[in-house]
């Protein structure tokens, strides 16, 4: 089987399934972005469970999956969950998660009992509830302009386009409400209506995904792409676009992987979403774990090198002053490695006693020692610390001060040429 025929065989069966999953993922990711930034991820979780009885009752009443009656039923069930949670909180004193825990598990249980009890009279597979039947989506089609289009794809497209247009039209309100609901309310934004709109949107995105991925795995499509995108950027509209792209990519990869390993597409899509998230947790450029570890390691290495430069500078100063060569502590392994690196980069060279600073090394060492001694002078003047307490903070901050800060400290402590210990402060190189 060639690659192309995989997508075109059987009236483009796989292509339609992937397109449906991608459309569902796009709608969910868009809604999920707002849920995640508004700290309502668990509301998404609750709603995705709780739409089940709404869908089931609507189907029993003669609705079709993806039809208007089912959409209405799902939205009603979603609003019922949120209303119940709030009622349990205000009237029963339950914490929000306990209230949601009671409301959505109960509604989901109602849905499952009806599905299994009325299994003979209902056109709804119980397996659909748990992991959807993306594989069967291409077989339930309606003709559009002579092309047989899967019904689920149509529903998902209509829902996504509606959600996208609404989101674009109300974007400023959404951003305002998400980041400062108090100010938004004061400025006359109908915050409650915006929130209810988001709940309705969540229900619509969930019900569009119900057939394809089931009621539970839709949570992955809602929350994971947005949380992943949030690790990569901080602008809300970029998060939304990125989340949609991530969702679409995961839908395609997940479907193909599920086909390759003969398992459920919905589960595999959730797994791919999880892998995307994990990859970003590790590799995100600003605050991925790898980037942070590298930064930390790079900084530790710079500190080690600068400390060695300063050590050789002080050794030369001691010799020039006629003191004995300071050898209180032998160099550690890290010190030796740093010395070798300094030699390789031409900042020190072999001298009579260990290493001697070269021109460039001396320049850098001047800056480090200068930072150190200026800071000691400043502390000695302003912090009223005893002399033997000046060294440790200076040892830490000498790696952080820039030329401008050094200049201003010098202006502050005066251009005296010695630090509180009476040692010379080297001039700015």
């Amino acid at each position, binding site marked *: 089987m060639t690659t192309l025929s995989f997508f075109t065989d059987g009236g483009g069966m796989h292509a339609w399934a992937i397109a449906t999953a991608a459309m569902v993922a796009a709608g969910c990711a868009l809604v999920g972005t707002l849920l995640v930034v508004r700290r309502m991820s668990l509301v998404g979780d609750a709603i995705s469970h709780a739409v089940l009885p709404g869908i089931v009752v609507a189907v029993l009443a003669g609705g079709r999956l993806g039809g208007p009656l089912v959409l209405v039923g799902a939205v009603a069930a979603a609003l019922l969950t949120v209303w119940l949670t709030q009622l349990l909180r205000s009237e029963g004193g339950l914490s929000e*998660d306990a209230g949601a825990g009671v409301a959505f598990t109960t509604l989901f249980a109602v849905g499952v009992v009806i599905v299994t009890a009325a299994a003979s009279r209902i056109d709804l597979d119980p397996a659909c509830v748990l992991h959807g039947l993306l594989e069967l989506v291409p077989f339930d089609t309606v003709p559009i302009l002579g092309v047989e289009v899967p019904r689920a794809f149509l529903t998902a497209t209509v829902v996504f386009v509606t959600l996208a247009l609404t989101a674009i039209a109300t974007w400023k309100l959404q951003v305002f409400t998400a980041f400062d609901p108090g100010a938004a309310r004061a400025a006359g934004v109908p915050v409650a209506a915006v929130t209810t709109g988001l709940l309705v949107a969540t229900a619509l995105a969930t019900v569009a995904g119900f057939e394809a991925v089931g009621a539970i795995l839709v949570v992955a499509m809602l929350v994971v792409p947005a*949380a992943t995108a949030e690790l990569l950027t901080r602008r809300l509209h970029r998060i939304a676009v990125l989340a949609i792209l991530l969702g679409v990519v995961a839908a395609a990869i997940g479907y193909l992987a599920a086909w390759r390993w003969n398992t459920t597409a919905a589960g595999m899509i959730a797994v791919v979403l999880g892998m995307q998230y994990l990859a970003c947790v590790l590799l995100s450029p600003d605050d991925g774990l790898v980037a942070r570890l590298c930064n930390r390691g790079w900084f530790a290495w710079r500190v080690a090198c600068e400390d060695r430069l300063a050590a050789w500078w002080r050794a030369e100063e001691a010799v020039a002053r006629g003191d004995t060569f300071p050898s209180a502590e032998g160099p550690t392994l890290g010190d030796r490695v740093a010395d070798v690196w300094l030699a390789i980069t031409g900042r020190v060279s072999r001298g009579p006693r260990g290493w001697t600073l070269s021109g460039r090394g001396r320049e850098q060492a001047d800056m480090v020692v200068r930072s150190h001694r200026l800071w000691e002078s400043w502390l000695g003047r302003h912090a009223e610390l005893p002399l033997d307490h000046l060294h440790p903070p200076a040892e830490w901050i000498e790696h952080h001060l820039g030329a401008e800060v050094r200049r201003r400290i010098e202006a502050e402590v005066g251009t005296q040429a010695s630090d509180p210990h009476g040692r010379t402060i080297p001039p700015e190189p």
Partner: protein
Amino acid sequence: MTAPAGIEPLFAISHNTLVVACGVAAVGCGAGVIGCFGVLRKRALVGDAAAHATLVGVALAFLATGRRDLPVLLVGGFLSGLAALGVLVLLRVCTRTRDDAATAIVLSVSFGLGITLVSGITARGIPGGAGLEQFLLGHTAALTTADAILLAAVSAAAVLLLVLSLKEATLIAFDSSFAAATGWPVAIMDYFLVALVAVMVVVGLPAAGAVLVTALVVIPPVAARQWTDRVPTMLLLSGVFGLASALFGVAVSAVVPRLATGPLVVLAAAFIFAVSFVGAPERGWWARHRRER
């Protein structure tokens, strides 16, 4: 024990069904008791992440041993549930993802992985693999006597551990900063309580399934809380509520085998909660309504 010939059709319940019913009732009772501290500590949904993640361990344990022994599967489920909680803590510490999103991510991705594994096993027709799906919504009909005794024993052990540490658990549930200030190891106690919840979630799997088992540790405690302000009374009531719900679920699904046990247990618990919510003497809706008038 044999029943007299005349009434046999009425009581056509086998010895096994009775033992299973008692075992599952013990699980319901234990889950109700253990769940109290999750609810009091306002961490009702922590168990949900662990519950959804158990499916991965169950499937992996089946793949590793090739058999469907309940103890092995449950140990696998327990380990993957704990792993999920560990991942949750790591995400909280190492990333800027918010707590609620982290919970939803762990819950949905681990459930997706579990579903993928279970479906893969089913599709390959590995013998015994088809039965794994009963861990999704719970089905007690397949339990053996030995399984039921195991479930009851684990539940009893968990409750015993909780009762032994009742004083400390109560202290951190109501005033954790005081407990921390006076030198109690609050973090360790928290992990201990969460681990107990994970244990109950796992032994609750055969009864309620991965999707709904969290209701066993949430709804009975919340219902019991409506009736009392005292911890021991709440534990007792919650245990009784859990026990009654579990018995109802087992009984109905024994009569109508098509119905999964889990949703029935949850519905029974929800009914008890509704009654408590409306009719409890002090905090109930009806009592407050009358006081206000």
